[in-house]
């Protein structure tokens, strides 16, 4: 019985100065082949200058059903934003 090629997540840096961004995924036997396939699948029109490949199973993702516990603590901390602070109008730039 043949084994299926694993799934890889593809991240591409569009140009220097920008971060790598998730572009999609593809199947490949190993990392090297994933890089070559990613070149053909996701950068046929010079969309990138650098590619990262990560095997999908190595990514740990948060569960959106736990978004409450995870992200709610930040919601009532308005004092982390500059607009929370009262300043007189005379202070123009701060």
């Amino acid at each position, binding site marked *: 019985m*043949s084994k299926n090629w694993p799934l890889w997540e593809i991240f591409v840096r569009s140009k220097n100065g920008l971060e790598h961004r998730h572009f999609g995924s593809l199947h490949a036997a190993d990392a090297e082949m994933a890089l070559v396939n990613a070149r053909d699948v996701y950068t046929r029109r010079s969309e990138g200058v650098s590619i990262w490949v990560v095997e999908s199973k190595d990514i740990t993702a948060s569960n*959106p059903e736990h978004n409450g516990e995870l992200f709610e603590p930040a919601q009532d901390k308005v004092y982390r934003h500059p607009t929370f602070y009262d300043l007189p109008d005379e202070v123009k730039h701060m």
Partner: protein
Amino acid sequence: MNNSLPFGRDAQRAERVSLSFNLKTNTMSDEQIRNLEEIFEARIARDEKIEPKDWMPEKYRKTHIRQMSQHAHSEIVGMLPEGNWISRAPSLRRKAALLAKVQDEAGHGLYLYSACETLGVSRDELYEQLHSGKAKYSSIFNYPTVSWADMGAVGWLVDGAAIINQVPLCNTSFGPYARAMVRVCKEESFHQRQGFEIMLKLCNGSPEQKEMAQDALNRWWWPSLMMLGPTDAESIHTEQSMKWKLKRKSNDDLRQQFIDQTVPQADLLGLTIPDPDMKFNEETGSYDFGEINWDEFWQVVKGHGPCNKKRMKDRVGAWEEGAWVRDAAMAHAEKNEAKKLKKAI
């Protein structure tokens, strides 16, 4: 139902609470499911995107797997009628363009398969559905491409109709599908232009060449109209699909849009649309057109088109003949991995 759960008044909060409740129990009353579905529909109505790990009704998941995989299969099978002409292209310019177009189609199939896999279906299952005939692909690819002019007509008409179908999907509710479609649409417009250019060249050529172009239009016109799907009255998925933004316009509206944009282009080429009833309607500002042969459409969908068997034979053949390559690559990767492990120890 667990009464100790803190139900807030704020809708967002209620949504979170009921979603986490779903996770803990797995068994929900019909009423709870209805509540979740209402919240879900409201999210889509607010133009929020749904991402793969979000809660979704089972029907949403199934419908998306069906539509996205059909779309992917169409891209993959769509390479077959054109592949035949790569080695027969009349010039290097045409050959390079056709090769790039077919390569794009492979890419589009891959974007869509991987978007589809985020819903928990495996690539192998999807291929199995295509190869066994359980899954459909666009019926237009079951027509033969008998002359070079067909490469022109396919690009101009088939890709033209596909673009009309696909552009609204860039805003569909399922995130991975919408993102894949943005990329597909960006790349697709050259496909139609290269097709039109082929037609234009033939129409400005010898009388025989122009005759070839007219013949291709004659054969591809009606199948292209059918490609936009059954009439609204016959279309079973329309209402639900509109709600989920899998569809923004009805099949009949899309078809009218396609006709209105294509007829003037045929005039420009000096070609005649093969429909004696085609006439501009001053009142509606649109073209009236003749009866579509829906019997033919359903025959082709059911597998009795001119090339259904050949397409599947070619596709399954390519998959089976490539098995040893996939196995060898996997064996090579495993051997390398083992070597690396040994070194580390």
